[in-house]
């Protein structure tokens, strides 16, 4: 919902959120809000995470065994649930990343140079 408010923000493609979460967690454990914020900031505000999807996605990744969660204390002294990448998650990330790269390259080839797409 939040993503649709502004014209220059992009609606996330189905399935890409998982990839982004895994990628974000490479830098170390993070809680949900931190993940959302990191995605927004790293994408220079072009990607805004729908929180309605974020938590089910985290749950899903946890069920798959790609991430692990544990309650801890955030830097401003709040209790928060921190997510951590597992070894299995790391493997998943690298395979999903290369898949994504191939997909983007393939779509780019089909669409052609940017000027032609107009």
């Amino acid at each position, binding site marked *: 919902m939040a993503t649709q408010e502004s014209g220059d923000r992009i609606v996330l493609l189905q399935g890409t959120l998982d990839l982004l979460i895994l990628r974000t967690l490479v830098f170390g454990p993070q809680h949900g*809000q931190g993940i959302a914020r990191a995605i927004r900031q790293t994408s220079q505000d072009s990607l805004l995470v729908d929180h*309605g999807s974020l938590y089910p996605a985290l749950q899903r990744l946890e069920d798959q065994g790609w991430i692990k969660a544990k309650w801890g204390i955030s830097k401003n002294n709040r209790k928060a649930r921190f997510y951590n990448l597992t070894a299995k998650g790391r493997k998943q990330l690298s395979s999903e990343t290369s898949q994504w790269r191939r997909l983007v390259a393939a779509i780019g080839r089909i669409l052609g140079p940017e000027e032609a797409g107009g």
Partner: protein
Amino acid sequence: MFWRKRKHHDFQAEIQSHLDIESDELTEEGANPGDAKYQARRVFGNVTSSEERFYESSRWLWLEQFVQDLRYGFRMLRRSPAFTLVAVLSLALGIGANTAVFSLVDAVLLKSLPVRAPQELRILTWVHSDKEPDISHSGYNTMDAVSGQFVSGSFSYAAYRQFRDTVPQFSDLVAYAPNQFTVTAGGASEFAEGQFVSGNYFTGLGVLPLIGRPILPEDDAAGRPAVVVLTYRYWEKRFALDPAVVGRAIVVNQRPVTVVGVMQLPFQGLYSWEAVDLFVPINKVAQLRHPWFSLSQPNSWWVQIFGRLRPGVSDQAAAAALKATLGHTIEQFAKNADVPTVLLRPGARGVGLFRESVSGVFAILGAVVGLVLLIACTNLANLLVARSAARGREIAVRLSIGAGVGRLVRQLLTESLLLAGGGGLLGLFLARPLLQVMLRFADRAGELGLDPRIDLRTLAFTAGVSVVSGMLFGLLPAWRATRVNPAPALKGTGTTGTSGSPRLPLSRLLVALQVGMSVLLLAGAGLFVRTLRQLSAVDLGFRAENVLTFKTDPSRNGYEGRVLADLYARLRQNIAAIPGVESVGMSQHGVMQGVESDASVHTPGFRPADRKGNAQLLRCSASFLSTMRIPLLLGRSLTLVDERTSQQVAVVNQTFADRFFPGVNPVGHTFYLGEQPGAEAIQVIGVAKDAHYTDVRSEVKPTVYLPYTDSLTGLHQMTFVVRTVLPPLAIAGAMRRVVAATDPAIPVAEMKTEQEQIAESIATERLFAGFVSAFGCVAALLAAIGLYGVMAYAVARRTVEIGIRLALGARRATVQWMVLRQSLWMVVLGLAIGIPAALVLTRFIQNKLYGIRPTDPASFVVAAILITAVGAAAAWIPARRASRVDPIQALRNE
């Protein structure tokens, strides 16, 4: 262990922490704390939706919902105990009956033999033809269901040996031959059903003994001591499960034989359901006094064979190899005969003689119990439709606050499945007694080796049937229930409306359907009951009251020829001396036992024409006809002198006289039996009135009563008939004592009254009559409940309308009639469905009926009257209630 991986409140805490952190950061960035909190929430989006999505992503959700539904279902069912009781009981009856019939069908028709790799087994048979070799045959002939060919299951022992040694397509070939033995143990002599088996029988089949050891190949050789292996049943029946029996010597056919082992319970030999008591090595046929089983003569065919086909070998290849080998053994005694084609039949389920006719019986039982379950389901569907109409308000509330239709249907279905589960569970407990009742009908003599049990297969069947019926009666009501329009239902107009409900036509159709199916069952019950009455009314031609019968066979004790004939005479004399005995007779076959001897008859020289045809033979004592009270019409009866002299004489029955000597007094004329040249002419000395011989159903055939001494070499088993002045069973003990006093080693078997014997001979008809009547009544009762439910509900809904009618001056009788008329319409509709269906379907039971047509008007009329009466009785209570409505009360409710 856990329903969900994460608790809900844990998730809520996480979201709260998210909001807190977000608002902290916003505050740090310069927003004021109040705005920050609001903005954090705005950025997050819909918290509730997020929570819901988390909730639904749980993989245990369906289970949690199911548990919820179950709890709710339990509560709903507890709130209406009468409904629950009717539902569970009717389902239990339906499912229990189906389970019972299934376990019987499973035991008789479906189960494989309890041997190693039963699917590899093949039964060796050969196809009868016109030019088959001339052999002496003992065993079975049967129609092969697959090829439609008439086949025999017996070979010579020489052929078996050749097969075993020269046909490589089989890894094992085992031989056996069924035979009756006399076993003397613990001071009593009795018949036992046994089998001569080849030495590799048990090892080849891969069956293990419970205690001791099986018969081994080394036992099956000349000169080795005779051994015997018992089946579990016989061990239980005769030796009270005494393990010390192993190693003991028992006397079989007057020869000492050592018991070496007892087989495990399920193994009963290779017939599917005929009980076997013991096994002895096939090499001992002569030692155990078998009169004609021969190990050496190539034309004596009595050995039955099972083979274990090697993997990858085709049946055709194996059969061809067997035929080639069979040819070599036939050449030795019949040069010009055709070598019969060998046919391999699947052996996994045993020989299974009469499987087709047994299947017919089961088909009827199965149809009946299936119909009963269908009626129970229809009944429940109907009650549920009415209930869901009554619950319209609840469902409307749930729909309007956002319950999904799918979720609601699921919940209602859970309730149905709960009922079905309860019914199935109770049905399992009912199945056992039902099974026992059926078995007692089907196997009064306890001769069948049937061991139907409620095992895992049965449980799976019952569970399946329960779920299917739950779906059957639950789906339609659930689907309809959720199609409520919430607005009027909530306004309350749905429950007291004056107009007829659109739901009712469905209920009425369901009731009519129930009535129709009940009529079908009742008509069937009528047909079977009338068949039984017709059979009981048949004039058998003899008097069965006060007759006790038993079988014996002293020939296995070494008596033969003239000595045996004299023993029989002495036994008759001694029994006749028992106080209370009026007379004693004896015949080779017992009457009404379905067994007969027959021979071709010709009357050379008798004009107008040589007449040929078959006649039944009954070798009997002179006193047989008078003891059975078969009246003599012409000439004289057999006498003791006829038993003694070599003069060939016979009494014939009236049908025989009419067939072979039409229009003349046959006394003094002669005829010949069989085709053998040099046979002696037999002179007719008397004509007896027709009497049934083999069974009640078939027409009396031409019958010849010969003195049992006419052929002393073939003399062995006899059935005694003893007419008493006392109740017959009162002298049973005295009779056993008298026989034992004559020779304690002489067996007395199957002692029962002639009336019992007759009842046994029509056991199937009795089973049908009892079974179908009982379930017909259940069906009628269920139809009554259904009809009552619908009418009671209709009257409750129309209370206001009825109140208005009464207030406007309608007479109470008119109101009563209005309700009754509606009920009768349902019954009439049901009859319109049921009667034509019955007229079509009863054709399939035609061959099980006797003396009536499948469209027998009496049966149909009685069924129709019965169901109408039941329907009227069921409608009477609501009709009365309608006529007693108090107009003021009714209108005040509005």
